[in-house]
């Protein structure tokens, strides 16, 4: 493991943590927010015979989760290359 470069590249880790915090904020907003706690606020928006909160609880949040993981993988693999810490 001695060949590892840029061990002290704190910019890389700070950028990663920032992306994680933003992603998890969205993760919490669609599931705990729209799906559960904020559902009464969304009751006016009708989706297929029910309200938007029900859609987020049973379908929407899963779709957002998928988008988040693929976004994170794409963004981090790019960040790895920008900071020269990717695997050759």
């Amino acid at each position, binding site marked *: 493991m001695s060949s590892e470069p*840029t061990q002290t590249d704190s910019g890389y880790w700070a950028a990663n943590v920032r992306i994680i915090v933003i992603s*998890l904020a969205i993760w919490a907003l669609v599931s705990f927010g729209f799906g559960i706690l904020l559902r009464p606020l969304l009751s006016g928006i009708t989706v*297929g015979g029910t309200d938007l909160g029900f859609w987020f*609880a049973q*379908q929407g*949040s899963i779709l957002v989760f998928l988008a988040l993981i693929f976004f*994170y993988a794409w963004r981090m693999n790019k960040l790895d290359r920008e900071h020269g810490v990717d695997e050759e």
Partner: protein
Amino acid sequence: MDQYTLNLLVVGATFALYIGIALWARAGSTSEFYAASRGVHPVTNGMATAADWMSAASFISMAGLIAFGGYGASSFLMGWTGGYVLLALLLAPYLRKFGKFTVPEFIGDRFYSPTARMVAVLCLIVASVTYVIGQMTGVGVAFSRFLEVSNTTGLLIGAGVVFLYAVLGGMKGITYTQVAQYCVLITAYTIPAVFISLQLTGNPIPGLGLFGDHFSGEPLLARLDQVVTELGFSQYTAQDGTPSSVINMALFTFSLMIGTAGLPHVIIRFFTVPKVADARWSAGWALVFIALLYLTAPAVGAMARLNLIDTVYPNGTAEAPIDYEARPDWMKNWEVTGLLKFEDKNGDGKIQWYNDKSESFAATAQERGWTGSELSVNRDILVLANPEIARLPGWVIALVAAGGLAAALSTAAGLLLAISGAVSHDLIKGQFNPNISEKGELLAARIAMAAAIVVATYLGLNPPGFAAQTVALAFGLAAASIFPALMMGIFSKRINNKGAVAGMLAGLLFTLVYIFLHKGWFFIPGTNQFPDTIQGSLLGIQSTAIGSIGALLNFVVAYFVSNATEDTPEEIKQLVESVRVPRGAAAATLDH
């Protein structure tokens, strides 16, 4: 060809496939046995992870839970998928970079403490063993329903097949059988769902049909809400808006999420991909394959509930229900199993099915001469009965049987591998005999695997009375002990050995004691001090949701104990640094 022969042929063919893969994918080294030589393609691993994760509970029980729970059961949908976001962002890439074989190994190395490793082994074994019991009983039930063999014979056949591919092939054999099992289970789940969606809404995609229009012209969910309330049940899509219930739902969902991310048999799947970047992609692919089932399940639940009501009340819920003698064949088939029961309480020969516990509906029921609900439906039969309800051909019924078995066997194999790795790698090599040879460890891993299968089979044949309750325990333990320790190990350099051990023990004991206080000590009925309801419970939180509080406690205790004691050594800080950057992951592979 009769149904029995068809079932036998289809299930037999899938089992032959699994055994064929077992013979092809034999493991020759510990690296192959524990991590499939880290040569698994990320998409392949995603598919194997989906089968590993989706158990008999996902395949058989979840749609039934949603059908009878409506909106309230959304916790399972969000919780069991949302955990993958945590896994992908917070754990999988770093643990892959660490490049070892087991979850307790990371905890032991990062917290430079054999005690921490042993606590992790304990949590892993308790969580995995309780989980595997459910899979083994599921195998027995599926066999006895579809292949007309006794429960015991069915369980022994299933255990024999797992034995072959898990003991021979380890992670390598399990990975490729899980891929095959995923294909079987997703096909079996989707085909009946597509036909039911077509019959009810005209839309071939169940997830779209759920939010589409029923053939009567109204939206499907609006119609469902209407017919269930006309029978005194609570509205399907409605939320119990009392603050305590909303908070419990959020905490329960959170417990399921962090429990999912902390379950060792899922985490070790990400050790099998070649690179850190692959671990990130692979988590996404795993959720794609899981979502194919999880986006279909709520549609299956809602449509099955509506179908069932329309079957019992063919002329609408305001008119009389059908005569018992005129019931469809699928009801007769399931009556034989005892999972569907009719009792003619008012002696009129008709099937009245309504909510006899609803006080507001009692007057209507009395007016109509109803003296209690006469139909009881075990919610586990909905998925299995789906092809019969939709009048699909016999081979679809046979495929559903094979799918249920695939779901149970693939999860059982993953759990058994996690257990055998903890025993041979963490206990034997890590604790008792560090100088064990590569060959010796491989043999120990195989013996541990065989022993785990024997124990799981025994517990499957003689399930402890509390088997159903222990799934909550498995999630609670993973959530309260394993997930926080892993996350702090990666995201903090300051958490030291004492903090980690204190935090894990605090989370573990708090969660365990809280569950026992509400479910009974060691699940013995009647020994609980508090009723397991929101109002009656100690903290106003049901025991199924307590894992999230246990996890919080783990974080807090670990933080304060670490800050009150000495800093972590320099080499541990370097270990954390190296786990955080992807470069060098391939080198870690070559060490073995």
